[in-house]
Structures are given as structure tokens and as C-alpha cells.
């Protein structure tokens, strides 16, 4: 098969035709920060954290495919500022109480904030009024922390062959909705892959919060990008 050669921050990288910048970079051992991109589910280019400059234009690395001679800027001062701005936007859009969130350090949004040295967001908090859905026996949905990455939408469809989640409304009113009155009325099961897909503390298994002590959590030791993102196995199993 033909190999495509291009550069990321001046370093020559090769990849396969049809591969995205994100995947090709990953293969080459170059970390491109991301939130909505997840495993092999279809990327949707929505969070924009993986923004890179491609031949002069900003593109989302998770959806832009590589081509010969492409010049990609990934870790530059300008791109870092864009990413910080976007991460800050996600923080102020919802209500994120990191200090006592049950995600407890396994959060990719929090890990990105640490990686980018964000102590407090540069934007004013929007303090939205959002509900919590505790109806399901094993899983809960806290809309306060939802960053609308759509991982759950796609994992439920593509990996679980269900359709538990969708986005409803549009613009700043857009929000996650479940296929039923509440989570308990859907076909969601604790064994579904979707229960381990949420990068933040929005879709959480019940009764497993705070299991890993502070100091031993994956991002306590090394920043995100230097450790692989927590796979389902890294998350403690639910206590029956």
C-alpha cells in the first residue's frame, strides 16, 4: 500500500491513505490532545481540542485525513492558546465541581486543564441550570458535567448496537437526551461499553466513585498524553 509522507511540527511522519491526522500522529508517537475522539468510533470533529493548523488552515485532526506533503502544526504557541480557550469554554459552559466529582481524577477534561496549566478558566462561568438523572439502578447521568462530546451517542450506536443517547435542540440549548422518559426507561445496561466512554463525570457507574486514592490515579503521576487514556479495564468494576 502507498505510504503518505507529511510533517507534524517539522518532523516527518508517514501514514496510510485515508488515515486521519490524529491516527497517523498516534502511530508516530505524537500526542494530539483530544476529547470527543474516542477509540475507533466515527470521529465527529465537535470539541475542536484537536485543532491543528494544516497548510495554513485550522482543521480538526480527528476528521482531517492526511495527504502527501501536508504541513501540520500541532504543538505551537498559537495552537496551545486555541486549545486552552476551548478547554476553558467547556469548563464555563457546564458546572464542574472537580474537587468533589466522583470521576475523581479519571477525568480527561481535568487532565487536559492540568496539562495546559489552567488553574482557573479565563472566561466567566455561565452557571447553567441542569438536571441529574439518577433513575437507572446502575448508571447515572449528570448533565452538569456533560461537555457534549457525543462519545456516548456514538458508542451506544456503534459498539453497543443501541441508540440510548442523542442530542436534542440546537445551539446553546443543545443537550443530551435519552431514548425514554429517563435513563431507567432505556435499554441501557451496566455491561454496555458506553458506561466507560464518558471522558468526564457526566455518565457514571454508580457506587464506584473515589475508588482510586488521590496520588495513585493515572493523571496524578504523568500528564494526559504521556499515559494512555483510561481504558475500561483501568476503571474499577462496579460493586455488585
Amino acid at each position, binding site marked *: 500500500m502507498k505510504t503518505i509522507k507529511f510533517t507534524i511540527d517539522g518532523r516527518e511522519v508517514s501514514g496510510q491513505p485515508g488515515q486521519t491526522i490524529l491516527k497517523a500522529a498516534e502511530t508516530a508517537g505524537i500526542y494530539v490532545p483530544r476529547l470527543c475522539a474516542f477509540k475507533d468510533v466515527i470521529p465527529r*470533529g465537535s470539541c475542536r*481540542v484537536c485543532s491543528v493548523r494544516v497548510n495554513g488552515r*485550522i482543521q480538526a485532526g480527528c476528521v482531517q485525513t492526511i495527504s502527501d506533503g501536508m504541513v501540520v502544526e500541532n504543538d505551537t504557541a498559537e495552537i496551545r492558546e486555541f486549545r486552552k480557550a476551548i478547554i476553558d469554554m467547556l469548563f464555563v459552559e457546564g458546572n464542574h465541581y472537580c474537587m468533589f466529582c466522583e470521576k475523581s481524577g479519571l477525568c480527561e477534561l481535568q487532565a487536559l486543564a492540568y496539562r495546559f496549566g489552567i488553574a482557573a478558566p479565563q472566561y466567566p462561568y455561565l452557571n447553567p441550570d441542569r438536571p441529574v438523572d439518577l433513575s437507572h439502578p446502575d448508571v447515572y447521568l449528570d448533565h452538569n458535567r456533560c461537555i*457534549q462530546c457525543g462519545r456516548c451517542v456514538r458508542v451506544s450506536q456503534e459498539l453497543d448496537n443501541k441508540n440510548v443517547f442523542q442530542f436534542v435542540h440546537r445551539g446553546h440549548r443543545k443537550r443530551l*437526551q435519552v431514548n425514554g422518559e429517563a435513563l431507567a426507561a432505556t435499554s441501557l445496561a451496566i455491561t454496555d461499553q458506553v458506561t466507560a466512554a464518558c471522558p468526564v463525570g457526566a455518565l457514571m457507574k454508580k457506587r464506584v466513585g473515589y475508588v482510586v486514592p488521590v496520588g495513585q490515579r493515572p493523571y496524578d503521576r504523568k500528564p494526559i498524553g504521556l499515559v494512555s487514556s483510561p481504558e475500561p479495564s483501568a476503571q474499577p468494576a462496579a460493586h455488585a
Partner: protein
Amino acid sequence: MKQAVAAAVEGICQHFGSDRNRMMDIVIAVQERFGCVSTEAMEVIAREVNSHRVEVESVVTFYTFFSMKPRGRVIIRLCKDIVDWMKGYEAVADAVAKELGVTMGETTPDGAITLARTPCIGMSDQAPAALVNDVVVTNLNPERARQMVRHLRRHLDPHQLITMVGDGNNAHPLVRAMVRNNIRRRGPVYFNGFVPGASLQQALARSPEAVIAEIRASRLRGRGGAGFATGQKWEFARNAPGETRYVLCNADEGEPGTFKDRVLLTECADQLFEGMTIAGYALGSRIGIVYLRGEYAYLRAFLASVLEERRQQGLLGRNILNRAGFDFDIRIQMGAGAYVCGEETALISSCEGLRGDPKNRPPFPAQKGYLGCPTIVNNVETLCAVARIMEKGAEWFAAMGSERTTGTKLLSICGDCRKPGVYEVPFGVTARELLEMAEADNPGAMLIGGPCRQMIGPERFGGQICYDDLATGGAILIFNRARDRLEIAEHYLDFFIEESCGHCTPCRVGLILLKRAVHKVVNGAGEPADLDYMRRLAYTIGQTSRCGLGQAAPNPVLGALQSLHGYADMVGERKSGLLSTFDLSKAVVDAELSTGRMSQYV
């Protein structure tokens, strides 16, 4: 009762072949029939088209013309575009609200009439305007608005509001609209007579490749604003692998201040459909779709009748003009109130029965568009030009216009001027000439191409309308010297915030943050640092948003900040220890009211 609803919804689904891709048509029909799309109806639709209720809900909640809860039998949608606002929207809205006894967004207690706001409905040349169900009411003032409400209360029939009809086909029995064309300047390409079939004959005398070559030779560029070479787009789609190809016409004219496609659809429907048919021939396509914005629903029956006539004349359908094997037909796809669907990939999403979210590019529509097939999406005006080019030749067309932008352009001119309307001008005309034509009133700024393009001040009135200088999809808004540009920008930010699809972070969140900052400065609470904050935030949104909407949304703010005085005089240094956004006297109002005495220190 419930069973009757279920049976009716099932019937509607089956009418559209229980096809998931026809979700828009299904939901529109359900909304029309029951006045809402209830949870029960969504469950039936989901079952019938083999989808999920939440998926149907995601579509229903995306478009403003759909609702899950019942609304009034009559919905008055007041257009609150900036031009309506300049022409007295607020007084009209007040009058209607008082007469109805409800506030914006509410329904009268008897469930008869709902009052709502809507962005530009394509009537900026006869503002303030409103949609009453699908009836267009123009040139409103408080007295006319009150009378309208009184009449509606009596009969609840919007069609009875039509006391006079406009010129041209606005008087056609299938249109009967109080809309005026306001064609102020006619040119050689549009509104200049058209014999159905003549252009198509010319096209069929050539090979499909030769038709594309002719369009390329004319150097026609897309009239929607982006200006992509039409012939090249067609060639890409023709050469893309795939059995089925589609010709889509973008009649979702939603850019605030644009209305020229409304007039083309009213007066040049044959020319448009002929352009689409020529495209069908050139591409080897059998199906064309006109995506008509929901606000133009009053033209739907008329357009359908023109299509039917063309079928009778052998200009659509099978073996067109007796050419064996040349089959092409056109259907109308209604939109339902979503500006973002004017973006071509969002338009395709909507045609596929999905939320109007833009798609990631690549792949481009010419490679993989509607239902994954090679697709061209062309503007109404572009397709009308195609038909004329086939009739008169590429050379004739290319002789008009400026050096690098050939042909003529239709402009919708409105705002602070005496002669708002549609003007056909050769490319290369200057902004100043337009101000003279439209008899502008003390012009201080022009918005060339609507809010997603650029705001210019007098220093650039000598610029030329063309793709290399002042590019426009057709909107030209004129603002007099008394208007504040940042206030105009805030108005447009509200518009973009409402119309964002919400898919990507910078557009969904960033615009809200930008609006807060602009509002602060417009209201006199700004600080010097706010100007830099707005510039940086606007730049981030423009650079990192996924589609053209988010990329363009900060333009009015950036344009305002670039204006001569730059707003430095509007922001003051923060007084020591005081937060400029904190108004102490306002903050103690509740306490004053509850204690019953006024604070002595504020």
C-alpha cells in the same frame, strides 16, 4: 383518540414510503396536521421508519417551525431582523403583544394565537414584516399590527388578512401574497423574459462534457457567496465514482438582508428549473431537489405547479424533449426554520431527514453528498444564470462584469435608503454607485454580503462588488451615520447564537461569551481590556469553528472594532475597587422593596 392519532401518523409515514430519509416531510406533515409533534407521535414515527424516538426528537427540536407541545392555531412570527428593528419592530411587537395580552413566546389563554419572533424572513425591502402561519404580512406599523390581531381574533384565518396582492406572480392564484417584488434595476440575465425549453434545447445539442465546458468558459462562479467555479464543481461531481448523482438547489435564502432569491423564485421559476435540468443532463443525474426555506412556504404550491407544467411540456420526467434515456425530475424539499441549512452540507443533512448539522469536509459533496452520492449544491441565482448562459453562450456572459468576475449579480439592497429592492448590476460596480442607486440616506456603513461577510465604512465605499474585493452573496445593508456598529454587531451575535447548530465548542459557547462582552461595552460598562478580550475571543471562534457559520459569526464584531474610532472612547478605566459590571443601586432594589425604605448611601 390516541389510536386515531397513531393511525394518522402511520398514514403520513407510509405516504412517504416509511423512509427514514424523508423525516423532514413526515415531521412537517405531522406538525401541520396536529399543530405539534407529540412524544406519542414521535414514537409512532420511530417505529414506522425503523428509528428511535430520541432520534426523531433530535430532528423535531432542531427546527424552529416544529414543536413538541401544541401552539396556537395561528402563529404570528414577527421578523426581528436588524432592518425590521430599524424600521420599527419594537413598536410593532409591543402593539401586538398588548393587543393579544401575551408576551413574546406565549400563546393566548384560549389556545388560539401564539406570538413568536423569527430571524430574517427575506422581506427586508418591506420591513417590518411577519409570517402569520405561512401568510406574509409586510410594511407593518403599530396600527396595522393591532388591526391584524383584531381580524385574526375574529376568524383565525390568516388568508383572510390578504386584502391586496403584490405585483407579478405575487398575484398568481397559487401565490396570492401581499409581497412586492421591488425589482429596481433589470439586467440581461434575470427578469428579462425566458422561453421554457429553449436553453435546454441548446444544452441537448451538445454532449454533457461540452455543456460543462461551456459553463467553465463562462467563468460563472457560485452566486451564494463563496464563489466557487460552477463548471469545476460540476466536473468534480461528474467524474466522482458512483452510479447515482444529485442536483440540489439551495433555496434556503437566510442570510439576513437577502431577498433576491425570493424574487427569482417568484418570477423566474422556469429559468431556475431549466438550469437544474441542464445540470442534470451535464452530470448524468436523474433527481433534483429544491431545498426551499420554510419561510417561503407561500411559494410552494406555485413552484409545484410550474414543475407540473414542465412535466406536461416534456421538460421534466422521462425522455425529456424526446431524448431517449434522459430522465430527470425535481422535488421540493421544505425546510423548517434553520439558517444553518443554507450551508451546503447542512442542507444535505436536512434533505436526508437529519438535524441540520453541517458535515465534516472532506469528503466534499461533489464526491460524497446526498445519501453518500456525488452531489452538486448550487444557489438559485447560479442555476438561473446557467440557463441564460446555455441560451446566449459563454462568450456573451463572460463579456460582462469585471476582469476576474464575469456576468452580473443580483443584489438585495435594504436598510437606510429610499429605494430598497433587487438590483441586477454588472460585477465591478462600486459600493458608492449602489448607495446612489438606492438613494441612501446619509450612509455611514455598509454590510456587504450580510453579517457573515464584511462591514465597511466610507473609506471603502470606492471598493468594487466582485469576488476579489467586496464579495457578496447578494445582501447589501446600508446604515446611516447615526447607527452604532457595535450595537449592530450585538444584534447579529444574537442571531448567530440562535442559529448555531451547537455541534462545535467555539461556536456554541464562544458566541455566548462574546455576546456578553459586547453587551457590556455597548451598555457603557466596558473597560479598555475588553476590547482586546473581544478581539482575541472573536479570532479564536473564527479560526476554530467547524463550519462557515461559526467562522463568520464574529465578523460583525471584528468589523465594528476596526472602525475608525475603534470604541476606545466607549470604554473607561475601572475606578479603583469597583467592578464595572456591578451596579450597586440596582443590586439593592430588592432589599429596598422588602424593607420599604430607600437606601441613603447609594
